[in-house]
Every structure is written in structure tokens, then in C-alpha cells.
């Protein structure tokens, strides 16, 4: 109680004197940048999630081949999630004598929970957004079904035992692009009509889905609850399961934003550490005096911790308010770029900011405080007496713990966290070791050169520990910023490269071999830019080495049994791809297989080797890494496929990382040409194509009736919207981290201000001109900036290389950026030093010496 009372009184007195203002200011700015990034990242990533969720028409889906458990729905409602139902099955749809196999989708009110339906009265037209779903007794057929049946709005369609009136043409639905599994045409009906179709029989192959949407925390709670349930036939899917294109884009954006946020936090930590050092330096005499007057270490420690906590809370309050206001302003400014209303910032971010700020303060300020407590009382008589250095463990442990905690909670990715944490520790160590070496080397240079140079370098060499600490602080700040800058550039370039201005927007599958060339010519004649055309045969994986795939399956409890009756895979992906053992699903059903000599630039061999012409006809196979991971395969495994009654045994020769977001034909399983050529197959391709009217497509469908056409334009628009958001977010978040960097700089320069006050006064008394003093400061800080710049630019190049690999971005070393980084560091640190020292230089010597 006494400690609290004293802490409060001392804090109040120091505050009144302005002693704490600098520390509070630097902490507040640091926290402002950290929370600003946090708020923005939270809002943008939630916006991205929302956008991404549209491909599921929900945030999450619970699917089952049989009935859905009542508990799932009950739990979802208990958690306050919004729900809707979707039942999918394949059946023929009749209009008079015409019939067509179609995907019947029975939906309940509320569908889609995310995204919107677009409808029209004419097939293959742009349409308009629809509110609601088909009323009971109505059906909305998609363009392809309507065209195939020759149906128009007002006609009657027969689905199973039920007649339904066609009231709208379904132009698009948010979940159509997800899997390309729906080879069949689609018709949307009301859930209430499903029973009367009499299509739902015990033997029917149908999928029931419970669609969920809500806040992240609610969804996470639901996922955890679901995982704790006994294994059943239900499977949870979210966007990362369902759409690899959007999943990977959103994941990379999310990771970048998390890293950017973390960088701001780390910069904040450096600023805190530097500010704490200044605080300690300024309080050495006070602590020695208080000890002399009878204060115990426990009392002093309690007072300091209470003061620091109070300061942390105040700084957090001010910082978070400033951070919130700044991001609001930024969002306002970026409104046109973001082209959407971002969801409001969540309170979670506020709490996270407080937690991060306090953790950082404790982790990075505590060691300095512990050292302060050890100041000998003898200092009151001998000012040269310093507190004994605290052990390395005590000095580093709180920081390491705080760092680990923040890295793990911010990144939420164990592998990335490990990498980040280790690299950070490595970078700190390297900066300290190399920094010490460089300062020693610099001290050798003080002998010659101009007077300003000698004094500047002498100052650097004399304050050796101080200089090394500043090099580490500047170096780390610059390194983090350079890594982020380089990553941002690579990420944005990578996305722009992936999504050229005119990406393929149509997929064509089931192209008969005999029609291949003519179809290609027709497409080109219509002005389409046609991508590679790949052969495609259906096959099923039956054995892995000597083990039957059935045996593999039986070991896997809770596997979803057959999701949709539609054929298995497309050029872009196969069904059943997802989390938690669903890889077995890959092996459950037929896959699309292809063969090619060409390895597209959207494919990268990560293990093994791609084939050459000499491998033609050899029993080899190349697999996408998703397939490898889900089935736990390795190079050299023998896979047996049943292809059209034949058995093909092939050895795994390579694994490929496929960029699914390239929107080009891609396959999980690729053979060398010459092995499957005999199998009766078809071709598939994608094309960038703007039909002049719906009739272009209708003519194409009429001329090649067996070819299926898929418009991925909507999916593409979704991905583009996500990427655009991500790019703008990345740019604006980067602004914030820059601000945090400036804070570090000021805190670091501030830390040596007090020491220089006296020294500068002595020099002035001895007749040094102000101009000379300014030159000394510029030389000293310029040299510091140069040393920090060389270290940070090199470290950044090294780190970016590895980080780019983790983020799946192509790294390009940029010499201009390296040199630019070094020069920028030199100039910025020299200027910051001059700015911070300006008041010291202007101060009359009498004040400092008095």
C-alpha cells in the first residue's frame, strides 16, 4: 500500500515536471502504430474473409452424405450463428420431351449467407442481384440448363415427381465457382419442395449442408465444439478447403498482414527498450539517493513496476485512440481504393493491443528496471559507479519470452512463428556481434581525416556500448522495414503476375479428341486467347505400393463418403480436397488424369524431377503437393490406377507445387505422354474470352453439344477483389510500420541525448562553433546509420529470401534496393540525430554545466 502510495505520488511529481513526457510520448506513438496496424489488419482481413466466404455462400459449411445431426444445428444456434440449409443431388430435369441431367440444389431461407444470387429472364445475360430464393413451387434454372432444355421463364420443369414453374434464369450463385465439381447444369429450388419431388430416397446419393455465418470467435467456437464430437459423417469446410485459388490468395495476404503487424509490434518493442534505457539512465541518481535515504530494493522495484504499468496503461489508452483514429482516417482515404465498406474494428484488437503493449513493456523494459534496482547507494558519493550488469539470462529471458509470446499469438502459425522467432534472435545476435566489430574498426579510423570526422568517429568509438545498442536498434528497425518492403513488392508483383489484365475466364471440358482442333479454331475466331489444351482421362487410384486404397480408407474414421455424385475432378482441382483426413477422399473416387511434356510456369517441381522427351511412355507420375500431403506419399512410391478397365502402375517421379490461382488448366496427377495415350479421353482448356452476346456461347454449345462450358469470371472477380483489397491493405499497413520505424529512431537518438548535453556544453565553452558541432553530430550519426544500413540491408536480403519461400512468393534480389537501403539508413539516421540533438546544440553551455 505504501509502495502504491509512493509510486503514485512520485509518478505525479515526475509527470508534473515533464520527466515522463518523452517516455510516454514514444510509447504512445509506438502503440499507436502497433494498434493502428492491428485495427487495420483486423478490418481488412475480416473484409477479405467475408469476400472469400462468398465462394462457400457461408463462412463455414457442415456437410454430410446422410442426415445432418440436430446437435450441430442446435449448437450453431446456441452460439448465435446464422444458419441455412442446402441439399444437393443429381437428377434429370424434364421439359416436355427434353431432359438434362442437373444438379438439384434445394435451399432454405437465408441462402446464400454470404454473397448474392444473380438472376435474369434470359440465359447468358449479365442479370441483376436477387433478394431471396425461389418461392415454393418455383425453380430457377441456370443458363446452361435452360439452353439445353430450350426452356424460358414461365415454362414448367419436372423435377422428380414435382412440376415447378421456371420463374428466373440463375446467372450466378456465389458458391458456383468453388469446386468446378458441378459438371452438370444447376437448378435452384425451395427446400420446402424437396420432399414432394420424391427424389430423396434411402439409396439417393445426396449431400446435405448446414451453412453457417457469424463472427470469427463464434465460428472458431463451433469448430472446436465440432472437433470434440464423436466421429461422424459430418465434415466442416471453410474457404481454405473449398477454393484453393482464393484460399491461397487470402492466406498469403493474411500472412503478410500478420507479419506487417508483427513488425510494427517489434519496432514498438525496440522503441520501448530504448525508451526504458533512457528512463533508467535518468533515474540512476534518484534510485541511489532513495536507497541512501532508506528505500529497500523491493520498495523501489514495486514503485518502478507500478509506475511503468501506469505509464503503459496511459500510453496504451492514448496510443490505441491515436491508432484507431489514424486507421479510421486511412480507411476513409482508401475508401475508393478498397471499394467496399470495411467491417468495423473489433474490440478484440483493442484487448490484443493492450496485451501486446503490456507484454512488450514488461519484456523489454523489465531487464532495464531490474538493473536500475541494482544501482549501488554509493553512487551518491561517486557518480562513476554504475549498477552491475545483470546476467545475460535475466537480461534476455523476459524479452525472449515476450517476443515468443507475441510472435506466436500474432502469426498463429507454428512453422512461420518458429522461423520468425529464430531469425529474429539470429538477426539480433548478428547485429550485436558484427556491430561491435564495426565499431571497433571505426575507432581505428579516428586517427586521420578532417576534424569533424575525427570528433564524430571518436564519439562513436568512445560510447562503444551505446553505439552498438544504437546500431542494433537502427539495424533491426531498418531490417524489418526492408524485409517488409521487399516482401510487399514481391507479393504485389507476384499477384499482378498471377492475374494478368486478361486472365482466362472460361473453362471448357469434355472436348472430344476429334473436335479439338476445330474447337480451338472456333474459339480463336471468336477472339479468345486460348490456354494450353490438355488431354484428360478418368481413372481411380486403387493401390499405393502393395496396399489397396480401400485398406487405407478403412483406417480413416470419419471420412466423408462421397460428397457429390458429380464427376471427380477438373483441370483446376479435384473434389474432396480439404482438411482432416479428407485426402483419403482423393483416393475414393475417380480422378482426372492428364499427360504432358510441358511444365507450366504455374507449376514448380519441389521434389524429384520433371520428365524429358526420353521419358515418353515410361511408367512415371507427377503429383501435386496437396495430393502428396493428403496421402502421405513419397518419391518412388508405386501407384496403381484403374483407367478404363486397364491397370496402370506408375512410380512417383516428382511433386509439384501448383499455383491454382493462375486460372489455367492444372491437374493433381500428370503422366508423361505415351503412357495413357491409348485411353479414350477428352481435352480441356481455358480461355480469356469476352462473348459479344450470349449467342456466341449458345452457338458454341450448339455446335459442340458435348463440351461443357464454365464461366469462372465471377470467381475471378472475387479473387481480383480480394487481391486488390490485399494490395491496398499491404500498402497502407506498410505506412504504419514506417511510422513505427520513425518512433524507434527517435527513441534511440533520445537515449543518448542526456549524455551529450554536458559534452556539447564543454565543447562550446572551449570555443567549438555550432556549425562544427552540427558536423560532428552528422558524421557520428551518419556513420551509425551507414553501419546499421549495411547490416540491415544484408540481413534483409537474406531474410526476404527465406520468408518469400514460406509465403510462396518469388524472391528477386534487388541491388538498387540494397544500395538504396544503405543510403536511406545513413541519411535518415544522420537527420534524426541532427533533429534530436538540435535543442542540445542550441542550449547555452551555462545551463548544462550549471
Amino acid at each position, binding site marked *: 500500500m*505504501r509502495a502504491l502510495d*509512493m509510486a503514485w*505520488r512520485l509518478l505525479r*511529481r*515526475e509527470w*508534473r*515536471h515533464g*520527466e515522463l513526457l518523452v517516455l510516454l510520448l514514444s510509447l504512445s506513438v509506438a502503440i499507436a502504430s502497433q494498434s493502428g496496424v492491428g485495427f487495420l489488419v483486423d478490418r481488412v482481413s475480416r473484409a477479405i474473409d467475408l469476400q472469400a466466404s462468398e465462394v462457400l455462400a457461408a463462412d463455414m459449411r457442415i456437410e454430410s452424405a446422410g442426415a445432418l445431426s440436430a446437435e450441430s444445428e442446435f449448437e450453431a444456434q446456441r452460439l448465435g450463428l446464422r444458419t441455412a440449409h442446402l441439399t444437393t443431388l443429381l437428377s434429370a430435369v424434364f421439359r416436355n420431351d427434353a431432359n438434362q441431367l442437373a444438379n438439384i440444389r434445394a435451399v432454405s431461407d437465408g441462402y446464400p449467407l454470404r454473397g448474392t444470387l444473380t438472376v435474369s429472364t434470359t440465359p447468358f445475360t449479365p442479370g441483376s442481384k436477387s433478394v431471396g430464393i425461389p418461392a415454393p413451387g418455383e425453380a430457377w434454372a441456370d443458363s446452361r440448363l435452360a439452353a439445353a432444355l430450350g426452356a424460358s421463364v414461365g415454362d414448367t420443369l419436372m423435377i422428380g415427381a414435382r412440376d415447378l414453374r421456371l420463374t428466373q434464369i440463375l446467372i450466378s450463385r456465389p458458391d458456383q465457382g468453388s469446386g468446378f465439381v458441378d459438371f452438370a447444369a444447376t437448378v435452384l429450388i425451395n427446400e420446402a419442395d424437396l420432399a414432394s419431388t420424391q427424389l430423396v430416397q434411402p439409396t439417393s446419393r445426396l449431400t446435405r449442408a448446414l451453412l453457417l455465418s457469424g463472427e470469427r470467435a463464434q465460428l472458431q467456437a463451433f469448430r472446436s465444439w465440432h472437433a470434440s464430437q464423436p466421429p461422424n459423417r459430418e465434415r466442416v469446410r471453410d474457404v481454405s478447403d473449398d477454393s484453393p485459388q482464393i484460399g491461397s490468395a487470402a492466406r498469403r495476404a493474411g500472412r503478410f498482414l500478420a507479419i506487417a503487424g508483427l513488425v510494427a509490434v517489434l519496432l514498438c518493442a525496440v522503441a520501448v527498450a530504448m525508451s526504458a534505457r533512457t528512463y533508467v539512465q535518468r533515474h540512476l*541518481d*534518484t534510485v541511489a*539517493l*532513495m*536507497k*541512501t*535515504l*532508506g*528505500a*529497500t*530494493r*523491493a*520498495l523501489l522495484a514495486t514503485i518502478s513496476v507500478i509506475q511503468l504499468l501506469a505509464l503503459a496503461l496511459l500510453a496504451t489508452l492514448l496510443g490505441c485512440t491515436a491508432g484507431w483514429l489514424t486507421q479510421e482516417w486511412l480507411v476513409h482515404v482508401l475508401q475508393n481504393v478498397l471499394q467496399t465498406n470495411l467491417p468495423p474494428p473489433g474490440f478484440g484488437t483493442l484487448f490484443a493491443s493492450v496485451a501486446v503493449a503490456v507484454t512488450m513493456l514488461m519484456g523489454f523494459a523489465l531487464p532495464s528496471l531490474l538493473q536500475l534496482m541494482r544501482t*549501488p*547507494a*554509493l553512487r*551518491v*558519493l*561517486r*557518480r562513476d559507479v554504475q549498477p552491475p550488469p545483470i546476467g545475460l539470462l535475466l537480461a534476455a529471458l523476459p524479452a525472449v519470452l515476450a517476443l515468443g509470446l507475441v510472435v506466436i499469438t500474432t502469426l498463429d502459425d507454428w512453422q512461420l512463428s518458429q522461423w520468425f522467432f529464430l531469425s529474429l534472435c539470429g538477426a539480433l545476435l548478428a547485429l550485436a556481434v558484427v556491430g561491435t566489430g564495426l565499431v571497433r574498426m571505426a575507432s581505428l579510423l579516428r586517427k586521420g581525416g578532417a576534424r569533424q570526422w575525427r570528433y564524430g568517429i571518436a564519439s562513436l568509438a568512445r560510447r562503444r556500448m551505446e553505439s552498438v545498442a544504437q546500431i542494433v536498434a537502427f539495424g533491426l528497425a531498418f531490417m524489418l522495414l526492408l524485409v517488409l518492403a521487399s516482401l510487399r513488392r514481391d507479393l504485389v508483383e507476384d499477384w499482378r503476375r498471377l492475374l494478368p489484365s486478361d486472365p482466362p475466364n472460361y473453362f471448357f471440358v469434355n472436348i472430344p479428341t476429334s473436335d479439338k482442333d476445330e474447337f480451338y479454331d472456333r474459339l480463336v475466331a471468336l477472339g479468345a486467347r486460348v490456354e494450353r489444351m490438355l488431354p484428360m482421362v478418368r481413372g481411380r487410384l486403387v493401390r499405393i505400393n502393395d496396399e489397396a486404397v480401400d485398406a487405407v480408407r478403412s483406417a480413416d474414421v470419419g471420412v466423408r463418403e462421397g460428397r457429390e455424385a458429380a464427376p471427380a475432378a477438373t483441370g483446376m482441382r479435384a473434389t474432396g480436397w480439404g482438411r482432416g483426413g479428407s485426402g483419403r477422399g482423393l483416393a475414393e473416387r475417380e480422378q482426372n488424369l492428364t499427360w504432358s511434356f510441358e511444365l507450366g510456369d504455374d507449376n514448380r517441381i519441389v521434389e524429384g524431377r520433371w520428365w524429358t522427351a526420353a521419358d515418353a511412355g515410361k511408367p512415371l507420375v507427377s503429383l501435386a503437393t496437396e495430393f502428396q500431403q493428403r496421402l502421405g506419399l513419397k518419391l518412388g512410391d508405386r501407384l496403381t490406377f484403374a483407367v478404363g478397365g486397364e491397370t496402370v502402375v506408375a512410380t512417383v517421379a516428382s511433386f509439384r507445387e501448383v499455383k491454382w490461382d493462375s486460372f489455367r488448366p492444372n491437374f493433381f496427377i500428370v503422366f508423361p505422354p505415351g503412357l495413357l495415350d491409348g485411353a479414350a479421353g477428352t481435352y480441356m482448356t481455358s480461355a480469356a474470352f469476352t462473348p459479344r452476346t450470349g449467342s456466341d456461347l449458345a452457338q458454341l454449345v450448339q455446335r459442340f453439344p458435348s463440351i461443357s462450358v464454365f464461366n469462372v469470371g465471377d470467381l475471378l472477380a472475387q479473387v481480383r477483389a480480394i487481391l486488390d483489397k490485399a494490395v491496398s491493405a499491404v500498402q497502407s499497413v506498410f505506412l504504419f510500420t514506417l511510422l513505427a520505424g520513425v518512433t524507434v529512431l527517435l527513441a534511440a537518438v533520445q537515449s543518448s541525448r542526456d549524455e551529450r548535453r554536458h559534452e556539447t556544453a564543454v565543447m562550446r565553452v572551449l570555443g567549438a562553433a555550432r556549425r562544427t558541432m552540427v558536423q560532428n553530430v552528422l558524421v557520428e550519426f551518419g556513420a551509425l546509420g551507414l553501419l546499421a544500413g549495411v547490416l540491415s540491408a544484408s540481413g534483409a536480403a537474406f531474410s526476404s529470401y527465406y520468408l518469400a519461400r514460406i509465403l510462396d512468393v518469388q524472391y528477386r534480389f534487388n541491388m538498387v534496393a540494397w544500395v538504396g537501403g544503405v543510403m536511406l539508413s545513413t541519411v535518415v539516421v544522420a537527420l534524426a540525430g541532427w533533429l534530436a540533438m538540435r535543442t542540445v546544440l542550441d542550449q547555452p553551455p551555462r545551463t548544462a554545466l550549471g
Partner: protein
Amino acid sequence: MSRDIVLRTEKLTREVSSPEGPLTIVRDVNLEVESRASVAIVGPSGAGKSTLLALLAGLDLPTSGKVWLAGSDLTLLDEDGRARLRAERVGFVFQSFQLIQSLTAIENVMLPLELAGRKDATERSQSMLERVGLGSRVGHYPRQLSGGEQQRVAMARALVAEPAVLFADEPTGNLDSITGGRIVDLLFELNTHSATTLVLVTHDTALASRCERVLRMSNGTLLDGGG
């Protein structure tokens, strides 16, 4: 130990390490100071006066030997124990005043009372500052006071808790002779009034001569014995 002896040392020695090997700053000092006495320790710079003062006040620990302050063996107490003893029995006046710049005059004086948990800190400090002639300047910060005024605040702080022993390290070292003289007058007046034992370190012979005992120190040794 006699009831009248408030400060006693026995073969007090302090060594420090230096590049040339161990250096003895205080050597085998035996000293006894009676309660309410005033003792000056004089000697040239580097004689070890301030180190001896630090050892006597428990600010530093001897390499060997013993110190008893107000009946407690300082060498048996840990840092916090020595701090508590200082809070109860010791006052300090320093050459460089050692006022906390962020606290006003009265707040500086209140500090030892607040550390001791005294409720009447404000009133006592106000009264003490009036006694040293600074009753009208209680709200001033150290930088707003002259050197002599600052030292008066320091003396008020040293004596406000009525210590058994007042240690003073060159109390006039930073002051001109007139101001120094006034400070010395005040110091002895307060000392007499509050019946405190005064141990001061100085190279000012005029100041030393006002003490009941003068101990000369050279090369770490007391020349004329401390008994």
C-alpha cells in the same frame, strides 16, 4: 560497546582491484565516535575520506573489518537491512546536494519521511524548511534555487527524520566562502539543536576546526588514531 558510542569500526579495510593489482583505499581504521559528538575527517584528495564515509554509513561494504552503527553490525546486514537502518538512524548532506530535480523543495524534504511511512511528512517538512529559512520557497524546484539554498534543502532533508548520525561529505565544497560559512553555521546550529552526531568529511580546515574532533587521514590510514 559503550552506551555512548554511536559509531565504531574495527580494522576497517577496503580494497579495490586496479590494473596494477589490488589497491587499498582504507586500511585498518579503528574508530569510535560518541553520541552527539562532531567529528571531522580531513586529508588531501585521494586520502580515502569519502570511501571511509561510505563505509561508515553502510553505502559500501568493507573488504575486511567491522562497522557498528547505532549498535548494528553493518557487515552482518544485507543491502535492504542497511537501507532500513539508514532510514531510521542516518541523515546525509552531500557536496553536490543530491536533490531530485523533478521534486520541489518540500517534496525532496518529505522523501525520507515518506519512505519511513510517516503521516506527518508535509507538516514536518514545512516546519523544517522554515527552520532553514526557506519557508517561502517550498514549492520551488532545485533548478530554481541557488547553490546555498539547495544545500539548505539538503540539510533540511537530512535532519527532518531526526537521525542519530548525520554524515556530511564536503558540504561546502560547491559553495563560495560566504555562502559556505552560512551553511556551516546552520549545520552546527541544527546539529546542536537536534542532538545529532555529526561526521563530516572535508578538506576545509576552517570547517574542520569547528568540530570537537579532527581526524587526519592519509593514504587510507587515520594518522592520529580514532579512539
